[in-house]
């Protein structure tokens, strides 16, 4: 049996569905709201239609867990401004179609800008070494899972003594966003399905405050379908028992303390800064900027083009989608005219975006 098959057994999914129904009954008349914080969970939930397997009184909503979706359009504007000044941009592919205030990276590329897509940011160093007279800017977007590789990249730029590569950072950390979510009483989230690979970096212990101080059930889960169902089962068990704690159900990858080498790399390279999130506004200490001593690697310093707030499409309800206030289909632009090929908002761009995930699998009648 292949590794992944062990986490996709149909019979086990059925058994867990029965167990979820039993727990739904045990909640009685209570309706509960759970949030999956991670975009990869959103994708798995949409792909396998897992929302259809939940009891009627359990709602599972998406959170701000897709890095490109929460990126402010002003970031795209800043990247485009650097391209206009002659920089070649190196980026993860899912940034390409994210709308800025006046167009996307894909639009700029079609108009002649040098925008190249990497699978790993290390590729950008190869390009920069091959073209030493060209200024290269790496678009540094992502949560802790990506921040750690980007930190290692910054250290590698130093080690190789490359003078023609800088980073434009909109890197973010997840716990401050959770702080913002639990501080908003209107959202009333009963439990968090905590991210899988962000947690591999920061450790399951990072969620202790949400359980102990805020009384929210927390389960760290992997993103195979059975992992998700088992994680939801764990959340409902806590809610039925009236307890709140951190359960690590992804122990095969996530340690309680996280990955110390990755944490050290992040701490060596980045410092926390206040950062804008779509839907959440400016969240204190939620961004990662290059620390003192690395300012020469900071594209916004080198090109004297700070990232300022951009203009969002006022009709796009991505901000509400990212807080679990509405389902994607409740946006009146969903599907027409907003589709992944011509996204009007960032939630329709990345495969991890809630709108894109809902759209791709909406043929099966997902809720």
């Amino acid at each position, binding site marked *: *049996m292949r*590794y*992944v098959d*062990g*986490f*996709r*057994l*149909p*019979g*086990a*999914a*059925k*058994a*867990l569905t*029965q167990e979820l129904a039993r727990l739904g009954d045990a909640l009685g008349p209570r309706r509960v709201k759970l949030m999956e914080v991670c975009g*990869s969970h959103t994708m798995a939930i949409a*792909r*396998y*239609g897992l929302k259809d397997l939940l009891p009627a009184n359990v709602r599972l909503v998406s959170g701000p867990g897709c*890095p490109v979706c929460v990126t402010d359009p002003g970031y795209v504007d800043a990247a485009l401004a650097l391209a206009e000044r002659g920089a070649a941009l190196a980026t*993860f592919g*899912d940034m390409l179609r994210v709308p800025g205030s006046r167009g996307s990276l894909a639009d700029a590329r079609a108009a002649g800008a040098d925008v190249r897509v990497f*699978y*790993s*940011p*290390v*590729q950008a160093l190869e390009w920069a070494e091959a073209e030493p007279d060209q200024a290269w800017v790496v678009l540094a977007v*992502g949560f802790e*899972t*990506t921040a*750690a*590789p980007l930190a*290692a990249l910054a*250290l590698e730029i130093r080690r190789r003594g490359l003078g023609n590569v800088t980073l434009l950072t909109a890197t973010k950390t997840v716990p401050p966003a959770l702080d913002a979510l639990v501080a908003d009483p209107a959202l009333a989230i009963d439990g968090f399905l905590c991210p*899988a*690979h962000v947690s*591999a*970096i920061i450790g399951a212990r990072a969620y202790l405050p949400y359980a102990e101080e805020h009384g929210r059930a927390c389960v760290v889960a*992997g*993103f*195979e*379908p*059975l992992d998700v169902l088992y994680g939801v089962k764990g959340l409902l068990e806590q809610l039925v028992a009236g307890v709140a704690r951190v359960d690590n159900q992804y*122990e*095969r*990858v*996530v*340690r309680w303390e996280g*990955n*110390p*080498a*990755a944490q050290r*790399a992040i701490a060596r390279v980045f410092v926390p800064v206040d950062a804008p999130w779509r839907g959440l506004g400016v969240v204190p200490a939620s961004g990662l900027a290059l620390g003192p001593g690395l300012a020469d690697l900071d594209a916004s310093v080198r090109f004297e083009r700070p990232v300022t707030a951009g203009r969002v499409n006022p009709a796009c309800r991505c901000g509400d989608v990212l807080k679990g206030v509405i389902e994607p289909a409740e946006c009146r632009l969903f599907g027409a005219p907003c589709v*992944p090929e011509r996204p009007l908002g960032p939630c329709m761009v990345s495969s991890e975006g809630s709108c894109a995930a809902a*759209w*791709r*699998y*909406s*043929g*099966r009648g997902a809720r």
Partner: protein
Amino acid sequence: MCLAVPMTVVELTPDGGGVVELEGVRRSVRLDLLDDPQVGDVVIVHAGFAIETLDAAEAEARMALFARLAATYERELGGPVTLAAPPSRDGEG
């Protein structure tokens, strides 16, 4: 952006990199984010970097748990069941 599928380290290179393999496919990978990586480690790769090692015993235990759930269910229902991923609009999934 996250690949959930673990890959096995088959080679370490002197510059902090290495080679990982899955089902015969080899890829180079950075190992800077692991303390003391070893050939034979099974790792989770994200954006070209190994971000954590897989605990094989935990993975086995979880698969055994799911297999037990499936077996119990199928015994009670009297046959295997299928739960296929639905087709996606772009034919990926």
